């Protein structure tokens, strides 16, 4: 399933699937401060993508909230991964930090000539950002960003299940 919006010549698409195993040029991984891939999607990236991804991150070291770094994607179908250290667990100013993290990911994508970036519902799920807050902030930030000049042609919001998909769906009607 997929829904799309046209924004100033850019495409904003909503679909459902496993973000680590899809044919995207690049995708965003909601990273930890120490850039360890860890469990969940991190484990999928390590298993499917191989050791080179963590090795590349180890050379970068620790990052602060809102920072985003890029790595290659090893044996994954994607070419690059944007590791975004977003806010977590009800920390102060969650919405502001989330917005800044998304913008930083977009800017880093542009700096690296990426044409397509897939985002998960940022921070929803394990990191406990409420799904409705996540959807509201992501849609507002991405719509505003794509409304301006950007070399990124398509942004995808890749929901992991129907619950996440349905939270974004109203913004695509």
């Amino acid at each position, binding site marked *: 399933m997929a829904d799309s919006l046209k924004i100033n010549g850019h495409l904003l698409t909503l679909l459902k699937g496993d973000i680590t195993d899809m044919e995207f040029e690049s995708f965003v991984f909601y990273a930890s401060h120490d850039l360890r891939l860890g469990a*969940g999607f991190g484990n999928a990236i390590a298993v499917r993508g191989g050791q080179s991804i963590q090795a590349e991150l180890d050379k970068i070291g620790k990052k602060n909230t809102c920072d985003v770094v890029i790595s290659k994607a090893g044996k994954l179908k994607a070419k690059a991964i944007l590791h975004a250290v977003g806010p977590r667990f009800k920390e102060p100013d969650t919405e502001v930090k989330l917005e800044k993290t998304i913008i930083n990911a977009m800017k880093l994508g542009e700096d690296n000539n990426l044409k397509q970036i897939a985002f998960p519902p940022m921070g929803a799920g394990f990191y406990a950002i409420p799904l409705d807050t996540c959807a509201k902030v992501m849609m507002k930030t991405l719509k505003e960003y794509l409304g301006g000049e950007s070399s990124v042609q398509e942004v995808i919001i890749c929901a992991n299940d129907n619950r996440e998909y349905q939270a974004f769906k109203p913004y695509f009607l």
Partner: protein
Amino acid sequence: MKNRSYKAEKVIELLGKKLNRQIVGSLAACVHCGMCTEMCHYVLTNPDDPTYAPAYKGDQLRKIFKRHYDWTGRVFPWWVKAKSVYTDEDLEALKDTVFGKCTNCRRCTINCPMGVDLASFNRMARGLLVSVGIMPEGVAVVSKDQWEIGNQMGVLKEDYLDTLEWMEEELQDELEDETVKIPVDKMNCDVVYSINPREVKYDPRTIADAAKIFHFAGENWTMPSEGWDMTNFGLFSGDDDLGGSVGRRLYEKVEELRGKKLVISECGHGYRSTRCEAPNWGKLDVPFEMESSVITMLRYIKEGKIKVDKTRNQEPVTFHDSCNNARSCGLFDEPRELLNLVVTDFREMYPNKAENYCCTGGGGAMSMTEYTPRRLKSAKIKADQLTATGAKIVVTSCHNCVDGLTDLIRHYKLDIKVAQLVNLTANALVIPEKISLPEEAAVKRIPEPSTDNVLAGKKILIADDEPDILTFFSTVLEDNGAEVITALNGKEAVELIRKEKPDLVTLDLNMPEMDGGKVFEILRKDPELADIPVCIITGRPELRRLIYDRPVKAPEGYLDKPVDEDTLIINIRKILEVKKHSSK
């Protein structure tokens, strides 16, 4: 006025939102009579430590409730011992109690004259801490895996499907019948069968056993390709959002397949979560029937769909009730009825049913390695219960209990094996005449290591500093056709692996010269060796962190010592088989 940390502020705020009649009743009603203390396995094994008493544990949350949400605490705080939390250290102390000193088994509730359900608000306290990011590391790992991969053990879809395919091939070989299938995503089935990821990762035999039973019962059944995990870590972590979304994934898949009934394999917390709790957490209507596989198997026998011969299971057997099945869901007569149909010598354990003691691995305890010594100490109660039965096999309808019991049996050196009803039922299954298999083949279990060269052509390196273990593993693996290389310490293991490039390495953790964790990291970081599958085999589960804390891909297999011949071969074959499929 004391300053309060941001997280402490949030916990207090969220507590107010979580209060409902049941929780307030339990928080307000305790009269500290002490009736609960003698019911708790932690108290019974730590009689001099009052911090294990259920009433004390409850007070750690109760005092916050009294201070902020109950009028008595606002008016007479000194009298009702109302107290707030201020720092992150206060929250860490609360974490130690709610995660490390209670398995949410609910046994203390039986004796409470006031109807206090400690487990309900202990779970809620866990949820409050999880929501601000305070939790044991193991809880974080498992929760993240279930949120993002869709199952508690991070089993990727391709590995799940490979395992089902492998089990199907094994069954076809065993029964010499290519019509035996493990159907995936078949539409309009009468039964959709959901399992615990532990079955995929550590015990695929249970999937094959269930498939065999469905096949001979003539069931129109399927397994889902997604949403197949019926376990739910939300029950343990207190995260209702996780609990609801996990349940929703499974229910939606059953609806998508137009399945008529969801059958839940033997797992206590999975059964309770999927059948009873997740519809509430997720605010969901579930339009189909749900049933424990125990009831399904019993029904097949009663309806004459399968025939069983109990003389095939003659060893003395006892039954351990899972707390979630028995105490929380009332599922305790059916497993006994089934057991009496498939074994000749069933011996009751006392106390039992709703009064049974926890296996001590419940409430997510198996994932919290920092509390392992406490858990094993408290397991003395269960060890004594098991010993008193004189049984050689303890059966349980719960995968958490399988792990908890296995661990305590090893710790207390008991001569008892752990099994599930599906294993014994499959073993007792009488294969219908039309299959025309000789009797011997009908009861054959996978694998048949003494007759098959199932590891022919495989080079396996065993690294272990115990010569007896090396000899035992070498004999078993060589008998099954493998070429075996042995190493007595970590340094020697690395040298031999570089030289020999084996197909698989079994690795002990506690070894001289270089521990198994270091060996593992060296292998994973060497591009030439990184893809060699590794099976950790250790007698010290508390050392798991040596492996899982490392910034490298997790091992392909993990076994606790002692390991019997069948378990060793099943797991080695599974790892090699999955490797073969994933390299295709």
